């Protein structure tokens, strides 16, 4: 019988939530790495027992942990992330040049086929790669060396490379996103990169349609249709039907088009999910109601999913890496909140139940569908 394992990164440790395929009874294990920030925990598609975790703290910096037994035990692996060559400068908040400085790993994306190969997206924005299970990391410096690099500027949360999507039909094609530079695409496994931000409009930059400078919060794709991308931008939910060459807005009837997460149904490539958030300053759900919005039309037409979610006095956020979808049928949808709840839907979002209610603030949620 199938099972699922939900990997949760929080402000104060990692948790592993497991259930059988019914997804109605859960075991909660953790905290692992208690007291540390776990920005991301993700398993290898090639070997689900191989899991990578980004562990960091303001005091003691960055660690990478690796598990080979599905998250029961862990070992620290390489934590040296050195920029390739002369690091150079990017723009600081005030527009002055600022040296590139490594701060933390935001996102770990294991290879689709090799459990020992994994990408890391870091702050200050750069992409690293390991082919030895995380022991050694080398920068794919063609990204940061892209001509626009000196003009990248951090968002309020830091200049982070937070999203890495590998095209299953061509693993050399990778999409990434950086706050607040925008989205980029490589077709040669990271040697060269192209900004893919045409069609985005951002009023916080001098030229609202500039090649770079857009605060992309998250992008998503369906593995059977990797040329179609969905994006939650700082404002605006966007869609591209040509692998990012051109974007168009699909915010439609959302109560607010600000948010962080966006994800795609496991079996319906045009069914997508977002969690609208009130902004610019509040960063909690509108009207005290926690609502996931689902579009079955690839955007523009959205329905609120509220069954089982708090509809009063709720003021949490759902951060960019904190939603994930399993591949069972019907697919399960999972998300975590800054209030420490992890909600699960075993019916593609129709109804929700909390798996746990009182974890530290949730930074990331990833689900593994196990045989």
């Amino acid at each position: 019988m199938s099972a699922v394992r939900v990997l949760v990164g929080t402000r104060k440790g990692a948790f592993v939530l497991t259930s059988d395929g019914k997804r109605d009874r859960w075991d909660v294990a953790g905290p692992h790495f208690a007291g540390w920030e776990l920005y991301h925990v993700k398993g290898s598609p090639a070997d689900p027992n191989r899991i990578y975790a980004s562990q960091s703290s303001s005091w003691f910096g960055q660690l990478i942990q690796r598990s080979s037994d599905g998250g029961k035990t862990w070992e620290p692996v390489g934590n040296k992330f050195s920029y390739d060559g002369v690091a150079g400068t990017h723009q600081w908040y005030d527009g002055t040049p600022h040296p590139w400085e490594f701060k933390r790993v935001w996102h770990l994306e294991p290879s689709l086929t090799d459990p020992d190969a994994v990408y890391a997206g870091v702050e200050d924005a750069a992409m690293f790669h390991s082919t030895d299970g995380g022991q050694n990391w080398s920068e794919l410096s063609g990204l940061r060396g892209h001509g626009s690099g000196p003009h990248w500027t951090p968002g309020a949360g830091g200049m982070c490379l937070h999203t890495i999507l590998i095209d299953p039909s061509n693993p050399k094609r990778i999409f990434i996103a950086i706050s607040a530079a925008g989205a980029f695409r490589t077709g040669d496994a990271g040697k060269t990169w192209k900004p893919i931000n045409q069609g985005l409009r951002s009023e916080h930059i001098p030229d609202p349609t500039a090649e770079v400078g857009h605060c992309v919060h998250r992008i998503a794709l369906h593995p059977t249709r990797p040329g179609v991308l969905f994006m939650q931008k700082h404002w605006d939910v966007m869609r591209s039907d040509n692998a990012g060459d051109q974007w168009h807005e699909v915010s439609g009837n959302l109560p607010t088009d600000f948010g962080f997460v966006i994800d795609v149904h496991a079996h319906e490539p045009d069914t997508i999910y977002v969690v609208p958030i009130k902004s610019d300053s509040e960063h909690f759900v509108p009207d005290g109601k926690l609502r996931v919005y689902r579009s079955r039309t690839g955007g523009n037409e959205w329905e609120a999913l509220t069954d089982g979610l708090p509809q009063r006095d709720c003021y949490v956020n759902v951060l960019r890496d904190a939603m994930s979808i399993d591949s069972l049928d019907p697919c399960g949808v999972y998300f975590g909140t800054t209030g420490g709840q992890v909600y699960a839907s075993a019916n593609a979002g129709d109804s929700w139940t909390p798996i746990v209610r009182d974890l530290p603030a949730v930074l990331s949620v990833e689900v593994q569908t196990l045989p």
Partner: protein
Amino acid sequence: MIRVVLPPHLRTLAKVSGEVTVDVSGQVTQRSALDALEARYPMLRGTIRDHDTHKRRAFVRFYACEEDLSHESPDAPLPDAVASGEEPLLVIGAIAGG
């Protein structure tokens, strides 16, 4: 042989309890002490000082013999009492506050 007291998170990482002891060859300085510590416990590399520059991380301090040695040269000799093992070198994580 010198004694080093690590902050709790680094004791957990290094899988040790209480203070640790390491052999230091040559003059006992912050640099030689940390080199020996990291050689014995490689998982600590990058957590106390930067991998490349060896600069002390901002939220980490070094105390010994009731003195704050954080801003001493990494190559300055540590107090005789630390070098002899009579007193430990304390690696301190800044207090969180609040």
